[in-house]
Structure formats: structure tokens, C-alpha cells
């Protein structure tokens, strides 16, 4: 938790407008917003934790459970939708048994839907770490998930 104190030290106590940057830094550091962090930020900024939680849930970026070891970002932009991202999303949902934004119970996988990633000529597009997978088809997903499982076990 010392990380959070390091982050807070860079900001001015009591200034409410630094709330979003603080939350963004905590998320970048921890991968999610832990409950302790919300309490600490609250006492630092002089805000109630419910206010902070209310704000954090308003924005899509913040999550309250850790990422899986392997995190998938699936583009749900208009072009990917037209090129058939819905069957891909359903196939991933089925393979993991979770909804977007959740993490599997064994902590291996999580996935989220993003707006346009900018790879409209390559759609549907998925990003895992720094790697992009393009021209996806729903029948490729089970094979891909198998490969990702071995990747997750290695980590």
C-alpha cells in the first residue's frame, strides 16, 4: 500500500480536481482500485468514500477487481461490429464463462470491450498485452483460448 502513499504525495491535499488523475495512477499501478485506496484517497482529499466510489463507477475506465493474468481487449467499434464482432464476443464469453469487465474465478482471464482501436481495415480486432490479433472468426476462438491458457499458466 506504500505505492498509494507515494502517488498521493505528488498531489495537493484537499484539491478535489485531482481525484480522477489520482484514481488513474492508482489503477495504472495496481491494475484496479482496491478498497483501501479509496479510503486513503478519501482522507487525503477530504471526501467521503461513497462520493469517490460513485465517481469511479461512473467512468468506464475504473475497475474494482484485478485483471486476469491474461487480459483481452476486444474492439466493439462500429466497423468491427459490422465485420462481425458480436459472434467473437459471444464465443469469448462462452469460453471464459464471464461477462466483459469481470475476471474468471481462477484469476487467469479477464476481458473488456473497447471503443474503436483504430484498426478498422483489420477488424474484428483483439488486443492481448501489446499484441494485436486481427481478422478474427468465431471458430478460431476456442483454439486461441487454448493457447492463451498455456500463456496464462506460464505467468
Amino acid at each position: 500500500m506504500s505505492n498509494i502513499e507515494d502517488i498521493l504525495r505528488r498531489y495537493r491535499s484537499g484539491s478535489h480536481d485531482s481525484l480522477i488523475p489520482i484514481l488513474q495512477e492508482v489503477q495504472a499501478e495496481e491494475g484496479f482500485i482496491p478498497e483501501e485506496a479509496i479510503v486513503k484517497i478519501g482522507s487525503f482529499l477530504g471526501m467521503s468514500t461513497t462520493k469517490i466510489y460513485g465517481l469511479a463507477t461512473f467512468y468506464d475506465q475504473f475497475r474494482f477487481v484485478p485483471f486476469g493474468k491474461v487480459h483481452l481487449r476486444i474492439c466493439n467499434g462500429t466497423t468491427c461490429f459490422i465485420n462481425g464482432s458480436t459472434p467473437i464476443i459471444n464465443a469469448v464469453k462462452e469460453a471464459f464463462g464471464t461477462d466483459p469487465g469481470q475476471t474468471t474465478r481462477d484469476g487467469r482471464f479477464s476481458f473488456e470491450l473497447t471503443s474503436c482501436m483504430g484498426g478498422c481495415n483489420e477488424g474484428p480486432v483483439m488486443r492481448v498485452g501489446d499484441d494485436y490479433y486481427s481478422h478474427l472468426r468465431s471458430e478460431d476462438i476456442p483454439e486461441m483460448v487454448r493457447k492463451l491458457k498455456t500463456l496464462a499458466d506460464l505467468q
Partner: protein
Amino acid sequence: MKENPGNGVRKFLIEEVLRHHSDTLKPETKKRLSEIRREKPSIPVIYVNTGTAAVISGALKSAGAIEEYLTDLAIKAEVVRVGCHGPASFEPIVCIHLPGKNKLIFRNITEDKVESLLNGVFHNDMPEEDLVAQDGNTGFEAWQGIPFINEIPWFRLQKRVILSNCGFYNPCSIEEYIARGGYLQFLKTVRNYTYEEVCDIIEKSGLRGRSGGGFKTGLKWKYALNASSDNRYMICNAKESDPGAYTDRTVLEGDPHRLIEGICIASYAVGASTAIIFLKAGAVHSLEKLERALEAARDYGLTGHNIFSSGFNLEIIIRNEAGAFVCGEETALIGSLEGKRGMPELKPPYPTTSGLYGKPTVINNVETLMNVPLIMEHGPEWFRSMGTEGSKGTKLFSIAGRGRLIGLVEVEMGTTFRTIVEGIADGIKEGRAFKTLQIGGPSGTFLTEKNLDIPVDYEALREAGTAMGSGGLVIVDDTTCMVDLVRYYMGFIHKESCGKCIPCREGTGRMLEILENVIRKPHTEDSNATLERFKGVMQLETIASVMKDTSLCGLGQTAPNPFISALNNYREEFEEHIFDRRCRANVCRGLRTFSIDVDKCTGCTACASKCPTNAIYGTRLQPFFIVDDKCIGCGICFDICKFSAISVK
């Protein structure tokens, strides 16, 4: 102590170029600038596009492979990573400039193609199939039998003004930008003009805001300048959250310094000492390039305290938004910057009188600001000479969807959408039929085939009941179902509705529910379910009009647009879904039913064993049949049948 060559260039650029007040430069300065621009290279120069689209196509791997090839064979050549040219379908694009020859543009150079490409180029055996064109503006020896860049429809039909730098210089290098005449307009403005004069020039040019309403930029600046206050803010809205547009992101990555110069001039014009760039969440490549560019500008003294002894101070900050579509709205954006929920407020007061922390604030979009240095350089008359009566200049569009060629284009105002779809994008992929052109993002409208002759013009679009929007154009062909597309947009808006006002929060939810009902499989088709569906459909139009009239901000007011426009233009498709329970594009899974051709079926049992709901019955080696009531329309049997005996009814 040996001098660092980087420092030498920095000193030269600051002393000889930026501090130089007169318009004419010394010949030796000009020569050195031309060297920095790589105008007459003595060794081969290889330019690799590394915009987001190119990275997704594998450009970074190609660049690595090129560098490896050059080191392995000990060939002296320079590899430059540049921003995006625009045609995303050609990515990864590689341009090769051999000394004394015209620059060549190659397309789709993935990692595995690098070796054969470079072998060909260095042994004078051009791989023709990957070649797009040669750049003929440079005054070198032309290649025989290779078309020039302005002979290709993609480039010929465009007017590339904002994009003039994109793809030609390394966006991470401030030196190259200054050598191309960058930041001189900012310094000229600070030295020669007063605040009002800059606002006047921009007003005279007729520049209008490039996102949404199309408000006159010069006028907006004047309002903020004339509001009495001790401090003002300039905000660059780079939060492009339309799910199908990538214009701002691409220009920002391809030419970040021009955006910064535009922000500097705009901040000076409105008298702001703090400028904030509000950047889209998750745009990692944009953030990295922008941060490096800002750092370089600070290092050169182009931002900070007392810029080049002019007495003008400016601090530019990047703020990452946290992922809420509604924050593109001005008042919601300000709320988000102040650390609140991004919810729209009632206007007036407008942000130009009371914005961020209650101070006058100007919010401009990336594309608008990119125009500013160009207007200061060429003058307002030059800008007025482009475009139509009411809309001056050019407009960027990101073409996406099912076009044969897609990517970022810049056209002069007044160009028709037909030129864009049929000329620049070269029609539809795989020879399919054009269905509609979606313009203006998730709250935009649809242009039908016969409406394509509308010109790109604020007023003409308003008359046609639509708006310019953010610049996203989605080409839709007959493989897409209109009802499903409208449902997708409604789902998006419903998720992004901030929840402050009831018409938007509840209206989007109800409309989504009704649309989902229309495409759902009629499992329990008892009288009640049917009645509910029809009742909902009858109410859709009423809900839409109430939302339009009573929502607080633009998000809710425009949310029913896709639905209304689709219903007006593609009513028969909606009726087919509702009455005939049929989807002509075969997209709506719930409405698909399959049947087995008894003559073709061999009774192999492949389909029956894979059917997830056991809806296929039959005896081995006899024709099988499908029970419609059990079928969920997943299509697994259709994909698995080797004898094409299964067809969609």
C-alpha cells in the same frame, strides 16, 4: 569536450531559425534546413508508417525486419518512422526514397515481405504488385511505368492541407517540424499581432468548429477574450469517442507538433496561460507521441515562461479522460476536469463566459486547431478560397466499414459524399451492394444511395436532417441488418447515458428493449408476447420525439436520430422484422430458421451430433429434419454440413 550533434541542431534551430525575425533566411540556413527535411538524400531513406492502424497491421515488426536486413547486408540507409498517410487498407505502408530518384510508395509490407521488397529495390527489380505510386513533387528522376501519386483516385480526389505533414516526417522529431516551417507562425503571431487581431484573422477566414455544431471559431475566441476575468483556459478536445471514428487520433499521431502550435496560437488569441489537452482513454500511442512532442516543445522554450522574450506564458497539460462518451459535451468535459462526474449542465452560461473553475474557457477540437497555424501562414483569403459559401476549408473524414479502401481522407468542403464513397473508397468490398452511409457517429443518421449527392457542407447537411458530426463515415453494405445496427447504436448510447435527465436515461433503455424484442426469437409466441411487441413498436416513434424535445444535452436529443433516420429510409426492413419475422441480411440470429434439403442430405449425423439444443432429428443414412421450435438459429449445422444440404429459410 565533444559537442553532442543533437545539441548542435537545437542551437542552430533556436538561434538561426526561431529567433530570426525577418522572413528571408540566409542561404546556408536554408541549405541546412533542407538537409534536416531530407530533401536530397545521399543515402536511401526508408519511411515506415507507424500510426495506430499500421501498428495493428504489424508495422513495428516490419520496421524491425528492415533494420535487421540493412545491418545484415551492411547497407547504408536511414529508416524513419513516420505518422499515417491515411489509407489504412494499405498498411503497413513503406516509402523508399533512393538518391536522385522519385520516392516510391509500397503497400501491405508485412514482416515476411520485407526481404523480397528490399532485394527488389536494391537490385532494380521492383515488386510491382506491392507498388502504389511514386511521389512526383520532388523534382527527381521519375520511374518509368509507375503511376504518380495524383493519378491514384485515393489521393487525386482529396485536398490534403491538414494532412500535408502526415507521413512525411518523424512525429517525434521537433527538429524536422521546425525545418518544415513549424512554430514560426506561432512566434510571428506573438511578435506581430494583438489578441484581437488574431481573433479577427480567424473570424475572417470563416473557420468553423469541426465537431458537432459548427460554431464560428473566431467568434468563440472573441467571446472568451471579451469576458472580464483574471484568468482564462484553453481546452483541446481530443476525446474522440465515436466508436467508428479515428480522425483526431490519426492526425494527432501523425503531426503532434502542428496541434501544439495550433494550441499555442489559440491560447495566445484568447489570453489563456494554461491549455489542457483532454485525451481519449486508452489511446496509448497518441499519449506517448504527444508527451514526447510536448517535452520537446518545452525544451526548445516554445512553451513555459516568457516564450522567446515575448512576455507570453503558456503551460500545456495533458489530461487523460476516464472513459465516458458524454464527456465530449463541453459542460460535461469541464465537470470531468474539475474532478466531478461528467454530467452536462444547463447552458447558458456558456463555457466562454464561465467554464473551468468558473473562468472563461474555450474548447476546440483537434481538427479545428490543426487549421489555425495554416491560416496564420497563408492568410484568411487562402482559407476562404476553399470550400462553399457557408463552409470554408477542408474536412477530415475517417472512412470505415465495408469500403474497398478505408482510412483517413481530407476533402474540400463541397465535395459530394458520392465522390467519397465511389471515388476515394472505390466502392464496396467483395463487390457487394451499397446499402447506406452512416454519418455522425452513434447519434448520426443514414444517407441512402439517392442522398449521396449531398455536398460536405454544414447547411446542406442540416437541411437533409443530419449533421457533420465528428467525421466518422461508415460504409454499410447489404450484409448488415439495419435493425441490428440501430440496436447497436442504441445500446451504445444507453450504456453511455449519464443518467442525469429522465428522457435520455429511460428513453434509451425503453427503445433498446423494444428493438431487442423485435429481433428476438419468438419462443413463446402467445398472444400476449406478440401484443407487447406491437405495442412497443407503435410507441417507438413517440418515445423518439419526446426524447428529442425534452433531453438536457445533445446526447439525449440526438440519441433517437439513427432510429428515426433508419425508419424513414428503410421502413420495409423494419416491417419485415416485425410482421414477417425475417431478416433479409441474415444477421439477426433469433429470426433465422434453417431447413434440410432431403435430396442432398446423406444422413451422416454430423449436424445432429453438434446441435446444442438437439433440434435435429432423423435416422442414420436417412434425410434428417429440423424442429423449428427448438432451433435457436446458431448456424452450427449450416457451417458443419459438408454436402450443403442445409439452407436458411
